[in-house]
């Protein structure tokens, strides 16, 4: 009985009128946890009831139940003669509170508290008033070795070591998978009311989600970790076959930093090092990016001299490791663990696996089995080389009544394959690992992807040693490793790669080999020098499905996938080149299966790396006397030059690079229309009509909002604007519309956020789905207001609009008011009363502020249905209302948990069913992030 929940319901407000006759409501609340239910008194005839009870409703429950079951508060209207009517519910998962309570050793006793106004949500009517509740959780210590709960493990969606914490060990990959029935497809659903059905579904999903998190936590705890970062959770709705809850994460041991201050510089002894560092620091200061500078500064290697206080404490905390390290320094590559891994694993990379040394815990076989990390951002020095993106996909047939073992085996297959891919690239680990599944009736496509890389697990906590690198090219190591460009170097020797790759000499050090284009799923490592500007790239490829039905469809899909991927890749590279960039980071690929076609969407942030060779201008291969081709070539060239100019990639690169030795052989050639047959230089072959279309599409320039990078200065105390955009349209033929839809997505967002200019866009996430014969695209992202307007280059018309007066005077006046508004708001925020504002951001930090406190992670799931789609303003109106309400509830929870911002926000699984004839619509949305408390 190691847990106690205490609940108090204080008051309600803005309740709906439930009794038409008297225009009031007789409200009471049922508080339910597990099988126990408590009830408050009935507060008669009030839309703003006060229960004023000093009484706490108590539940004493088991720890694992605490983690799995949500607390449910049901607001009811009392009727004397008929059955009581439900007004709505507040469903509270206790996991966030538990994590806080378990880690709250130093804090005052009394448990973790959640208190505040929470909107009452009804699956049929949306938000119907608010309840003021206090929930407390108290845990009793339990040292049972066989416990099934994992309360002590903290979860972060944040894809990096959360700011404010220091990692003492990275334990490795943790995953879990559960299969359950989807209540929507149970027989009972046929006889119960839509409300009951939706609520059952919502609770079942929350249960499932909590359960899978608990199990992941358990695995992490077994590894000796105290936190899971880069936590990703997914649901696969397989219809009749049930629902699969999957979760992956990286188990780490973290300790909070005493003060969230900027780490001190480490003094380097080596002369050249110090010089380089200084130079770099100066560069960074010029750029005015403190974040950047900070990372760079502690990326310096070989600090033999003075070690700061922080490092000292760090060292002491990781003594076991340090000892172990020294003792086995030289013979690491032949440790038994390495060899056992090789036996199970593959043929290539005999020395590779061994680098993933056990951290403090010996029980890290998992880590060796799958050297995967779900984080996307790493401390400097962690990534030694990036090998490239690796991806594995498989098409499976879902069988009804499927078991979790079968699903787990599917994923295990994929992970093994991915590991083999990484090995083939001579990489030891897969970073920014993610898993996705697309389900369509019985067919599903599972994808696992990540970035193969050579990593240095010790960089984080062994600062007193030269970074241990045991790559094949050991001789080049010492100098190479110190170079900021080394991350871009290929980990394999030329010719030894798994495929014939084009390699060039590094633009940084001019010795090592680099690929001509770099694709990676992780974020750009800070040490890697690049041009300041980044661009969001998207590409969509579509193919028709030739066969439907279970088995035939699956086989066909399996045949089509390679072609689809090839097309996608080709388009993405062409677009990359058109932007004048040579690397994509944060690359995400997804597959969407429709009834008649299958699509693949890739999105990422394109940058121009200094180390990689500049992209060649686009060429077209066609017959000599094709007038059309000449025109297209001209258009492509113009766009290429214009893009390069807009991105600032055409100017000399000195100011952005650390060592001004970048090649500048670019951009000056005349647009010669040589329709050459040189295979290497050409982007496109104009053989088919589609190719012409594609080429034309490539020539279209789109003005996006610029992508947020650390080089930009966000406005102080200006909250980030998270947004979500949903499109759904009838699918045109061959998905030609899809490409346009996705490409124009960001232009649309930029226009709609025009009042925020100057602002930058944090890398948005795209979700493409093909329900029925429609296409649905969900884009969620964050706009970050920028500090210095002069830094922003393409604040085109939108900016002018704000300065040029409107047609009528009233309007002009209002604009002035609006322009004046922000500073006032800031003042208010500082003074307190408006502190109830909650910011949401998809980034892991709130830029322009400092995160004072990470509170906990939060995940919510909503089901909403309506039988009045038309009355709500059509499907758009329904979705608009629902999304607004969901964001409102997220804000309310964030505030109630003691935060004022939610970072790493994600909105996924937008499932929208619509029955036009019945005027009915149903929607499912899952949303979450990390609750933080920030100070401006």
């Amino acid at each position, binding site marked *: 009985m190691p847990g106690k929940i205490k609940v108090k319901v204080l008051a309600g*407000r*803005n309740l709906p009128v439930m009794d038409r006759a008297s225009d009031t409501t007789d409200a009471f609340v049922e508080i339910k946890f597990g099988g126990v239910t408590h009830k408050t008194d009935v507060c008669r005839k009030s839309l703003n009831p006060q229960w004023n009870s000093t009484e706490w409703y108590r539940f004493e429950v088991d720890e694992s139940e605490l983690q799995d079951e949500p607390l449910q508060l049901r607001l009811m209207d009392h009727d004397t003669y008929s059955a009581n009517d439900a007004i709505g519910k507040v469903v509270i998962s206790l996991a966030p509170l538990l994590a806080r309570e378990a880690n709250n050793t130093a804090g005052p006793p009394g448990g973790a508290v959640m208190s505040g*106004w929470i909107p009452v949500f009804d699956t049929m009517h949306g*938000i119907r008033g*608010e309840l003021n509740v206090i929930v407390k959780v108290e845990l009793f210590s339990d040292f049972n070795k066989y416990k099934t709960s994992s309360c002590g493990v903290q979860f972060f969606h944040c894809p990096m070591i959360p700011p404010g914490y220091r990692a003492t060990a990275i334990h490795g990959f943790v995953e879990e998978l559960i299969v359950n029935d989807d209540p929507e497809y149970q027989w009972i659903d046929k006889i119960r009311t839509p409300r009951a059905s939706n609520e059952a579904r919502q609770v079942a999903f929350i249960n499932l989600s909590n359960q899978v998190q608990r199990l992941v936590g358990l695995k992490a705890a077994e590894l000796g970790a105290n936190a899971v970062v880069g936590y990703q959770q997914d649901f696969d709705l397989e219809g009749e076959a049930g629902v699969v809850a999957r979760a992956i994460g990286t188990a780490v041991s973290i300790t909070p930093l005493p003060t969230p201050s900027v780490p001190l510089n480490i003094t380097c002894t080596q002369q050249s090092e110090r010089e380089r560092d200084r130079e770099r620091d100066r560069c960074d200061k010029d750029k005015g990016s403190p974040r950047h500078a900070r990372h760079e500064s502690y990326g310096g290697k070989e600090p033999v001299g003075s070690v700061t206080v922080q490092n000292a404490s760090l060292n002491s905390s990781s003594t076991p490791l340090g000892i172990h390290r020294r003792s086995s320094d030289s013979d690491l590559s032949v440790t038994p663990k390495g060899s056992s891994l090789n036996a199970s694993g593959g043929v290539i990379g005999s020395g590779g696996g061994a680098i993933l040394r056990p951290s403090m815990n010996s029980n890290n076989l998992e880590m060796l089995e799958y050297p995967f990390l779900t984080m996307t951002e790493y401390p400097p020095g962690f990534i030694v080389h990036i090998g490239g993106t690796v991806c594995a996909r498989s098409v499976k047939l879902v069988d009804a009544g499927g078991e979790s073992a079968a699903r787990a085996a599917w994923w295990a297959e994929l992970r093994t394959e991915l590991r083999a891919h990484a090995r083939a690239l001579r990489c030891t680990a897969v970073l920014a690992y993610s898993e996705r599944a697309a389900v369509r009736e019985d067919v599903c496509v599972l994808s696992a992807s990540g970035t193969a890389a050579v990593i240095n697990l010790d960089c984080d906590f062994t600062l007193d040693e030269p970074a241990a690198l045991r790559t094949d090219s050991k001789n080049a190591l010492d100098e190479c490793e110190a170079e900021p460009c080394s991350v871009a170097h290929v980990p394999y020797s030329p010719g030894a790669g798994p495929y014939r790759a084009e390699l060039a000499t590094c633009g940084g050090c001019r010795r090592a080999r680099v690929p001509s284009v770099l694709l990676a799923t992780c974020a750009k490592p800070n040490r890697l020098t690049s041009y300041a500007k980044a661009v969001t790239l998207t590409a969509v490829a579509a193919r028709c499905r030739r066969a439907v039905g279970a088995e035939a469809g699956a086989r066909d899909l399996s045949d089509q996938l390679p072609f689809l991927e090839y097309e996608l890749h080709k388009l993405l590279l062409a677009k990359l080149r058109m932007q004048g960039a040579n690397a994509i980071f944060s690359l995400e690929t997804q597959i969407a299966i429709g009834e008649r076609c299958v699509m693949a969407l890739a999105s990422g942030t394109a940058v121009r790396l200094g180390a990689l060779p500049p992209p060649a201008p686009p060429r077209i291969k066609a017959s000599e006397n094709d007038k059309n081709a000449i025109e297209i070539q001209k258009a492509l060239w113009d766009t290429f030059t214009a893009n390069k100019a807009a991105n600032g990639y055409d100017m000399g690169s000195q100011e952005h690079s650390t060592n001004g030795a970048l090649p500048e052989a670019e951009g000056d050639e005349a647009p010669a229309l040589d329709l050459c047959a040189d295979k290497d230089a050409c982007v496109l072959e104009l053989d088919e009509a589609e190719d012409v279309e594609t080429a034309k599409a490539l020539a279209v320039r789109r003005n996006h909002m610029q992508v947020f990078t650390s080089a930009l200065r966000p406005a102080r105390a200006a*909250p980030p*604007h*998270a*947004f*979500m*955009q*949903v*499109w*759904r*349209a*009838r*699918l045109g033929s061959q998905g030609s*519309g899809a490409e346009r839809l996705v490409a124009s997505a960001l232009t*649309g967002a930029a*226009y*709609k*956020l*025009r*009042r*925020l200019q100057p602002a930058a866009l944090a890398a948005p996430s795209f979700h493409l789905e093909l329900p029925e014969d429609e296409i649905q695209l969900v884009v969620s992202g964050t706009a970050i207001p920028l500090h210095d307007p002069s830094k922003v280059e393409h604040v*085109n*018309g*939108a900016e*002018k*609009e704000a300065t040029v007066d*409107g047609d009528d005077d*009233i*309007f002009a006046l*209002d*604009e002035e*008011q*609006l322009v*004046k*508004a922000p500073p*006032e*708001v800031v003042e*208010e925020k500082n003074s307190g009363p*408006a502190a109830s*504002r*909650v*910011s*949401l951001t998809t980034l892991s930090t709130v830029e322009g502020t400092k995160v004072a406190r990470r509170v906990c992670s939060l995940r919510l799931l909503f089901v909403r249905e309506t039988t009045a789609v038309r009355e709500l*303003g059509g*499907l*758009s*109106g329904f*979705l*608009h*209302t629902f999304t*607004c309400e969901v*964001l*409102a509830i997220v*804000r*309310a929870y964030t505030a109630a948990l003691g935060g004022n911002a939610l970072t790493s926000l994600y909105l996924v699984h937008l499932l*929208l069913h619509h029955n036009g004839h019945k005027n009915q619509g149903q929607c499912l949305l899952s949303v979450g992030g990390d609750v933080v408390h920030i100070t401006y």
Partner: protein
Amino acid sequence: MYTEVDVFVSNFTLIDPEIYQLWIEGCSSSEAVTTLHQRNITKQTGATVELIASDVLDHYRTFALLERLFTVPSKLSEQMIFQIDEPTKHMLIEKYYDLDDAVIRELLGRKLSSRHRKDLDEVAERSGAPLRCCRRQFDNVRRIFKAVEEMPGNVVANIRATFLISEPLAKKYGAVVFIACMRFETAKRKLQYMSFNDFYHCAQAIMGSWTYSCTGPEYYDTEMDREFLLELRELRILLDKEKEHKHLICMRLKPKLLEKSYQELELNFRLYSRALVGLACNLHRGRELRSLFVDLLEKCVEPLRLGSWPKTDLAQFLCAYEQCALQMDVLREADLKNVWERYMRVVSRCLLTMYHI
């Protein structure tokens, strides 16, 4: 490609004042798109029509959801669904309750019941504003009227406290509520020439001087001071001393007025005086009070117009008319000086407002 869903939602609800203004003006979404597109051409934002349309629809949906809250402005601050900063909230409410002079002029004197909501086509036609816009204003007036009608205390303060609107706007509503409470006749064809602004000034004057002035929980400044109205009857005695009154006035005005006006005054003094005093004597009757503006027009303004008085001379005359009566013994003896002042202050103001040339 036929778009079925196109929704953009952000954490902080962004309100574009330009689109809001168009919505307030009663433009349909397609009209708004056309207008914005035309404006955009001149400014060259480069946004396509589709993009503008999608943005306008996003805003219109938000406005439709917000409109429910505008009816109870205090709810706008309490609600959690939209995260809007304070200045924007004020702007939203202020504009939502904004009054169109042409529309409100048509609404004056109409019964504020929901039955009459259907008959707003006529209002729309005559004011030239879209029906939607008229509906909004009608509903606003009706809502405010119902809310403050029975509320004791200062009507403007009440409106401000309940609806969170600015002082000038609250004053306008105060006048509208007052005119509605008094059921003043304003819709007569003859009165059509008067603008809302004219009525606003008249109502302000009446509220300032003829209602229960002491502010307190039991006093309503939308209610006439009955005792005062009854006392007005006694001003009849002035008619008995007409000669004396006329003499005093002529003495005083002779050097000040134009020759023509002076002649006119001498000739028709009896007519004017009888009208002014007669009006006062009958105001205690409900029907007479209601037709105050009609009477002022028919008995005073029209004869004055016939005499083609310049406005400055009229002001001189009204001033003198008030002052000279105060000098006379009759008023002092009957203790009517205060009543006379209160009466004349309003009537002078009304006449000067109503006297358009």
